[in-house]
């Protein structure tokens, strides 16, 4: 099979004979492009005519690795696909296999998983918040967010042993049990977050006039664009569509908890910002309910299987990660090595909408817009 070594350039990016068109290349090494994203901009003056994201710099062949090891061996990979939602991805993979193989998860493990995943979601949003402000020039909130995040990481570290990339889930439950110290720490963290930090972020950042000027009306994603590009997560919810996998296809025990799905209609950067702050609040609510209702009991099934051989067939399992709809598509042939494992990651589709969103905007807004989409390159490149 031959492939062209020097492929045709993107026809949308051709200069079209306009002498004032020039090209600006942002990244892949750039203090601000989150991760290794290369953005080629076709510009005239300060206006962007066309944008082309170039990805693949963080491709580590996770899907190929999945085809070369058994289901249990792939567990550590899952966290590294999106290291900011590492817990969510890790647990999601476990939940996918459990659904396929009909493995019953003990109640206590379910509650612990919810606590860990929602804390992970909060920490992912906090990091986004800090780095977003960093891109806009407000350096101080970054430190405060990391302070909060440090507490979450310490809490999760105390029970899982890892700070960022977890292998906490197992098929059927979780590895280590939580104790009263964990619960106390989590409660203290939630209290600080809800009573002190989130209102502070809202007031000092969200109400700041310069911040509002930079974000309002900037980077509008319309419902139509979101639909055609398969955008999910906060980017979709900022356009008015109340789609959250935790509500649309409830998994684990999310249907037992009271939480709102925040939406906005403006679809601009400010909407996404407000939305994520609200989502952090809602996640705090969920963690609180989970901690209050944490039952006693085992954290793994009484007789965990030794080999995992899903019956032959194709399976799809979706969860809501911090960035949107994360889907695991598994094709099994009855052995303990998958035939195919496809990771449908939300940032992949979210980023693909950039050409449409960035067209006819100003280059100075690029940083704000790409930052507000909250992409994590490793999950795009896998």
């Amino acid at each position: 099979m031959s492939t062209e070594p020097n492929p045709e350039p993107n026809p949308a990016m051709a200069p079209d004979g306009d002498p004032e068109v020039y090209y600006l290349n942002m990244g892949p090494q750039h203090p601000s492009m989150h991760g290794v994203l290369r953005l080629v901009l076709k510009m005239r003056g300060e206006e962007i005519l066309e944008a082309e994201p170039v990805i693949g710099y963080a491709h580590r062949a996770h899907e190929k690795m999945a085809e070369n090891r058994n289901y249990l061996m792939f567990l550590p990979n899952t966290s590294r696909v999106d290291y900011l939602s590492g817990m969510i991805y890790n647990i999601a993979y476990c939940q996918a296999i459990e659904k396929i193989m009909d493995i019953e998860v003990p109640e206590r493990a379910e509650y612990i998983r919810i606590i860990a995943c929602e804390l992970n979601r909060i920490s992912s949003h906090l990091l986004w918040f800090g780095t977003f402000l960093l891109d806009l020039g407000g350096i101080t909130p970054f430190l405060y967010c990391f302070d909060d995040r440090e507490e979450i990481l310490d809490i999760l570290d105390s029970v899982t042993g890892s700070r960022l990339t977890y292998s906490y889930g197992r098929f059927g439950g979780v590895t280590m049990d939580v104790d009263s110290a964990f619960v106390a720490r989590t409660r203290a963290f939630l209290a600080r977050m809800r009573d002190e930090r989130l209102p502070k972020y809202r007031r000092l950042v969200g109400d700041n006039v310069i911040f509002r000027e930079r974000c309002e009306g900037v980077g509008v994603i319309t419902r139509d664009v979101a639909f055609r590009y398969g955008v999910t997560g906060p980017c979709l919810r900022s356009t008015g569509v109340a789609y959250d996998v935790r509500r649309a296809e409830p998994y684990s025990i999310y249907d037992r908890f009271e939480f709102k799905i925040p939406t906005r209609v403006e679809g601009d950067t400010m909407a996404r910002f407000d939305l994520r702050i609200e989502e952090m609040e809602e996640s705090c609510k969920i963690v609180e309910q989970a901690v209050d209702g944490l039952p006693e009991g085992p954290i793994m099934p009484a007789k965990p299987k030794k080999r995992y051989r899903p019956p032959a067939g194709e399976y799809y399992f979706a969860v809501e990660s911090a960035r949107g709809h994360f889907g695991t598509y598994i094709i099994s042939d009855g052995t303990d090595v998958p035939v195919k494992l496809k990771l449908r990651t939300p940032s992949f589709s979210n980023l693909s909408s950039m050409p449409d969103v960035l067209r006819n905007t100003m280059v100075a807004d690029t940083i704000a817009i790409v930052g507000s989409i909250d992409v994590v390159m490793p999950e795009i490149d896998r």
Partner: protein
Amino acid sequence: MSNLPTAPETLADYVSGNLWLFFAIATAAIMGYLTLNALFLIWLERKISAHIQRRLGPMEVGWHGVLQTVADMLKLLSKQLVTPRAIDKPLYHLAPVVVFAPVIASVAMFPFAEDLVILDIELSLAYVFVFGGIGIIGIFMAGWGSNNKYALLGAMRSVAQNISYEIPLILSALSVVLLVSGLEPVIINDNDQLRPASGISLIDIAIVQDAKGWWFVLVQPVAALIYFIAAVAETNRAPFDIPEAESELVAGFHTEYSGMRFAMFFFAEYTNMIIVSMVATVLFFGGWSGPLLPGPVWFFGKTYLLIGGMMWFRWTFPRLRFDQLMSFCWTVLIPLSIVNLLVTALVLELL
């Protein structure tokens, strides 16, 4: 005659006749002061930023890190001077000099106390602004000479920003000049020659506030505010630091400068901050005037307080986008400063 304010004796008077001695002392004094000043300000900035960000800042070198800047300077001095190949050599090498030299000259004209000033020039306020403007040429030389798209973009933005914000800066200063000229003229005893206070001389403005007993900020609050905002913009500090924004254009017009050359730009920025703060101190806050404590304490105290305010701004606000920055200048600050000037003139006419 005895209770009229006297013009200070200047260094020039002391060494009158001996020009070389004058230059020697003046240059030594200024350079010494500026160096110490930069060392202090860099340390102050790092400490203020650290405490705003819930951390400590430099703590290792010296007591609470006071010698950190010395260590950094030594490091910068020892760095290899990497000169990119495709630069425009004269422009690239002269740019730091052009940015830095004028601000040194400006320091000579400030009255640190009733009798402590290096040079007494009649039009000192105008001179300060002129020298401030020369630095802008240096910025453009740096951007163009670097032969780098990012540096050029940064330089163009910086130049546009600086020349735009000079207007409200000067207009608000003009309000004070008008004020001094329009008030009951204060007669100054200048070597037994009586003359009315001149609004365009920094020394005279300070003398008038000292003599009257109140500071001009009370009468010209709007001008003071406009001046301060324009000053922050002039020095390319946040929230107006698009030209040096790290996340936007790597490092703006001084992208291609490393080592000691980079240090010169850095130095120039802090010196610029000192200059605009000193002008603000003299124009609006009475210069050296203040009860109890000696003049220089008041003068430097007020100056550094204003600088502390500038630093506070930097670590609190996000950055304004360039077009927002420009439209803020042209649609808000300039009309406001013009209105302020007209109102000042009107009020003075009616009184």
